[in-house]
C-alpha cells in the first residue's frame, strides 16, 4: 500500500481510495464495514509503516497566567485563607455544601468546584497535578514568559523554534506517508510548534478547502503548489503541507464524529478544539502532536471564588478535558496530554478581588502512561509571607522542563533532551509510569 495523497481527485484516486478501504475491510474477519467504519471515519488508508511505541502528544497552553491556587487549592495551608479573603475556595468541611467547597484530592490539596469534572480522570490514575511548578527563570511579562516556555529555554533570542517543534524535527514520522504530522488548533502557529516538519495551524479542520468551483479545484491546487515550490522556508513547506492535507481532512466527517463512552464536549472554543483533536487521533491518520490554547486566565480583577469568572473558565477547561479523557485517554494508551501556563498569580488577592502576575502555579499531565491520581509537589514552599518569593509569590520548586522532558523521553521516545531543552540539566520527577 502506498501513499494516496500525491494523487488528486482528477486522477481516479477516489476509486483507488475506496478500493483500499474495501481491501482493508476485507481483512477484518468478514465483519460488516459499518461496525468498523462509522460515517465520520476517513476513506483513506495510510501505509502500515507505523511506529506504535510513541505517544501522540496534545500540548495545551493556558494563556494569561493561571491562578493554580484556585484550581487545585492548598486547603491545608492556612496562609491560603488569610491572603484571599474574598476569593478563597472554602475548606472541605462537612458543614459546607458539596458544590461550594474544595473536594479533597489528598490531605493537603483539592479541586475547586469547577474542576470536579476531572475527578474521574484523577481517580482512574490518569491525571497528574504538579503544583508549585513553573519556570526557574523569573519573568512576570506574559509575552516573555510564554515565549521562554514555548521555545524551552529562557532569554535566548537566537532560539526561535519551539520545544515540540524541535522534538518533531528530531524524530522520524510515526507514519512515513502522513501528510500532516502536527497541527495547532489556531490561526497562527504557536511558538511551541515552530520548526516542526509537516505542521500547520488549522483553526477549523472541518473547513479545510481551497474554495471555488469543485471542477477546477484540483487544477488550481496544482498551480498554487507549483507557485509556492520555491517560496522561502517555511512558506514552501507550509504550502506543500496544506495542499497535501486537503484530501485528508475532507475525507473526515468532523460533524458526524461520535465520541466514545458517551463523552460530550462543551460547545466552547476549547471544547470544539479538543473534539477536533480527538477526531483526528481516532481517525488514525498519522497526527503525532496537537497544540491547543485556552486563554482568559489573566484574572487581575473580579475573578470570583466558588462562582465567577475564573470558575466559569475553569469549568469549561475541566469539562472539555474530562470529555477528552473519557473519549480518548481512557480508550487509547498511546496518547499523552500536557498542560502548562506562563506563570501563576500572587498568593494574596489584590484590591480588585483579583490577582496580579505571580510565579509558580499548576501543571497537568494526563494519559495512561502518566503516574497520575496524585498531586506531585517537590516540597511545598508554603504561602506564609516569609516563604513567598519577593514576599508575594509561591516559589517554583519544579521546573516545567523536568515534567516535559520526562514525557518527551519516556512517552515520546526521544532521548535527545539536550536539543529539545538546550542548556537545561534534566531531573526526572516520576511523572510517567
Amino acid at each position, binding site marked *: 500500500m502506498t501513499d494516496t495523497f500525491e494523487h*488528486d481527485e482528477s486522477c481516479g484516486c477516489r476509486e483507488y481510495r475506496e478500493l483500499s478501504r474495501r481491501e482493508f475491510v476485507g481483512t477484518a474477519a468478514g465483519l460488516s464495514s459499518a461496525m468498523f467504519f462509522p460515517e465520520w471515519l476517513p476513506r483513506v488508508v495510510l501505509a502500515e509503516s507505523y511506529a506504535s511505541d510513541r505517544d501522540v502528544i496534545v500540548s495545551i497552553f493556558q494563556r494569561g497566567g493561571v491562578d493554580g491556587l484556585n484550581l487545585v487549592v492548598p486547603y491545608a495551608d492556612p496562609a491560603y485563607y488569610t491572603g484571599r479573603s474574598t476569593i478563597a475556595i472554602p475548606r472541605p468541611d462537612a458543614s459546607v455544601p458539596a458544590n461550594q467547597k474544595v473536594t479533597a484530592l489528598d490531605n493537603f490539596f483539592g479541586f475547586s468546584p469547577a474542576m470536579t469534572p476531572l475527578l474521574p480522570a484523577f481517580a482512574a490514575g490518569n491525571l497528574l497535578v504538579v503544583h508549585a511548578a513553573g519556570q*526557574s527563570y523569573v519573568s*512576570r*511579562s*506574559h*509575552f*516573555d514568559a510564554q515565549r521562554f516556555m514555548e521555545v524551552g*529555554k529562557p532569554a*535566548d533570542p537566537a532560539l*526561535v*523554534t519551539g520545544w515540540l*517543534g*524541535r522534538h518533531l*524535527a*528530531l524524530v522520524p514520522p510515526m507514519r512515513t506517508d502522513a501528510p500532516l504530522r502536527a497541527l495547532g488548533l489556531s*490561526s*497562527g*502557529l504557536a511558538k511551541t510548534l*515552530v*520548526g516542526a*516538519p509537516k505542521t*500547520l*495551524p488549522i*483553526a*477549523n479542520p472541518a*473547513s*479545510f*478547502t*481551497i*474554495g*471555488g*468551483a469543485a471542477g477546477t479545484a484540483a*487544477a*488550481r*491546487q496544482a*498551480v*498554487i*503548489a*507549483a*507557485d509556492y*515550490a*520555491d517560496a*522561502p*522556508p*517555511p512558506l514552501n*513547506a507550509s*504550502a*506543500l503541507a*496544506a495542499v497535501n492535507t*486537503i484530501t485528508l481532512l475532507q475525507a473526515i466527517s468532523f460533524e458526524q464524529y461520535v465520541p466514545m463512552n458517551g463523552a460530550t464536549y462543551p460547545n466552547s472554543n476549547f471544547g470544539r478544539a479538543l473534539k477536533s483533536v480527538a477526531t483526528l487521533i481516532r481517525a488514525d491518520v498519522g497526527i503525532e502532536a496537537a497544540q491547543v490554547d485556552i*486563554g482568559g486566565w*489573566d484574572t*487581575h*480583577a473580579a475573578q470570583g471564588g466558588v462562582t465567577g469568572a475564573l470558575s466559569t473558565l475553569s469549568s469549561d477547561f475541566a469539562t472539555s478535558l474530562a470529555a477528552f479523557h473519557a473519549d480518548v485517554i481512557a480508550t487509547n494508551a498511546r496518547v499523552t496530554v500536557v498542560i502548562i501556563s506562563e506563570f501563576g498569580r500572587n498568593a494574596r488577592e489584590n*484590591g480588585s478581588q483579583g490577582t496580579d502576575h505571580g510565579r509558580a502555579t499548576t501543571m497537568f499531565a494526563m494519559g495512561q502512561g502518566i503516574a497520575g491520581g496524585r498531586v506531585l509537589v517537590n516540597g511545598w514552599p508554603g504561602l506564609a509571607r516569609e516563604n513567598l518569593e519577593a514576599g508575594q509569590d509561591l516559589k517554583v520548586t519544579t521546573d516545567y522542563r523536568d515534567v516535559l522532558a520526562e514525557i518527551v523521553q519516556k512517552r515520546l521516545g526521544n532521548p535527545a533532551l*539536550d*536539543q529539545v531543552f*538546550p*542548556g*537545561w540539566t534534566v531531573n526526572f520527577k516520576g511523572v510517567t509510569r
Partner: protein
Amino acid sequence: MDQQQPLAAGDPGVERRRDRRTFLVGALAGVATLGASRPARAQDRRKKADRETMPADPLAGGVGSAIAAPSAWANPVIRLVRRATLGLSDADVTAAKAMGYQGWLQYQLDYQRIDDSAVDNAVAALWPTTTQDVNTLFSLSQGTVQTAQQAAWVYRAALSKRQLYERMVEFWSDHFNIEFAKVGYLKVVDDREVIRKYALGKFADLVKASSKSAAMMAYLDQNVSRAGAPNQNYARELMELHTLGVNGGYTQDDVAELSRVLTGWTIQGRGTFTFNPALHDWGSKVVMGVAIPAGSPSLGADGIKEGEQIIDFLCNHPSTATFISTKLLKWLLTPEPTQSQINTIAGVFRATGGDLKLVVRAILNQGWVTAAPVKFKRPFHYLVSALRGSNAVITNTAAINGQLVNLGQPLYQWETPDGYPDLFEFWSGNLMPRWQVASTVANLRSGSIVVDTTPYLAGTADAAVDLISRNLFGGELDVATRANLLTYLKAGTFNETRVRETLSLAIASESFQWY
C-alpha cells in the same frame, strides 16, 4: 543551569534541512506540471540567510532570516508605495510615479492636507456610531457597535487616500491594543480620540491620551486600582508594551511603585477620565529613581501631576526611543533592522521629541526602502490589498470581518495587550484561508462589493494577465508567476469564469503575500 549550548553548524539539524529541501522537490514532482520556469524564480529570489549568516537556530529552517525582494521589484517608487499602503492600486502607483519618491512620501505624511471627505462622509453615513458620543453609544447593542467599528476600519483601509496614515493607525491599534469585548463602546472613543488623533503626531501625546482613555483603563484594570491594594496590570504594560520595552531597565519594584502612583486614575459616568483623591496613595514613591514625596491634597499635592510626571519620564527615556524606533522599523521597513538603523532612528526620535512624521520619514528613506527585504502581509493587510488590487467597487464592508475571522485577524478581537503579531513565522502556516479568500474576492459578482472583470475580457489572455500585473503588482509581476497564471488562463475557455479563477490564483500566489 541555563548555560548556553549552541547547536553546532553541521549537526543533524543542518542535514535535516537539506533533506527537507530534497523532499520538497521530490514530492512536488507529481503536481508541479507548471514548474518549468521555477529555476528563474529561484535565481530571482536571493535568500539573505544563505548569502550572509546562517540562522543561529539550526532547526529554524529560515525562520527569522530576512528574505530579499524579487528582482522584478525594480522601481523605487513602487517599493515605497508597497510599504506605505495597504496594498498597491493602479491609482496610487500612477499618482506616486507622477509625484516622485520624495513628493509622494511627503504627500502621504501631510495626511491632513489630503482631501478624504468622500470617505469620511461615507463612513459617517454608513456607521453613525463612529461619530456618536458615549451617552448614545452606551444605549446601543454592543454587538452592533463592534460590527460598525470593524466595518468602518476596513472601509477606510481600502478606500482612504491617506494610506500611510492608515498603516500607522493599524500599527498603533496593535501597540495600544484593546479588545473590544472587554470594554465595548469605549473602544470607539479610544480609536477616535487616541489612535486616529495622534497616529502621525507626537508619540508622547499618544501615550498621554491613552493613559486617560477610559477604554485602556477598563481594559487593563486601572479603573479598579486603589491605595493599599493597587492593581499592577496597566502600570506593567505601560512600561513593558507602551514605552520602555521589556528590557527597558525597570524592575518588578518599579511596576509596583508605578501602580501606586497611578492609584486614583479612574473612570466616571459613561466613560470619561477622572482622578479620585480618595483612591490615591499619597505616600512617597520611587519609580526608576524618580522620587515622588509623600503629600496631601489639602497641602496642594496633585495626584494627576504625579502620574503625568512619570509618564513624561517614560516617554523621554532613551529606552523608549530605542524600543519604539525598533518596532517602527520592523513595521515599516524590515523584520531585522540593523543596530545602525536603530541608532539612527532612535536619534531622530530623541532629537524631534518623538515627532512621528519625522521619524517615519527618516525610516522610509529611498536607500533603505530599496534595499529592504520583503515583509509578509498580515491577514488584514492581505485582504484589504486584494480588494484594492482587484479594483473592487465597494459600497459596504460589513461582511469583511467574517473573512478576517477565518484568516485569523478579526479587528479589535486580539485578547492580550501585545496586539496581533507582525511575524512571518506566526502567519506563514495559515495559507488555506488565504487561498479561500482569494477565491471569494475574485468571485464577487454582485452585492456590496463587486469585482468587475470586463476590462480583463476586452483583449487577449496575455493582455488580461498584463492587466492583473498592473492592478495587483504595480506592473512588476515576476516572470514565473506570470507564466503560471497565463498557462492556467489559456488551459480553459477564455471567459469570465476562467478570468475570475486566474485572478483568484494571482491573489493566492506567493508573490502577492509580500510587500
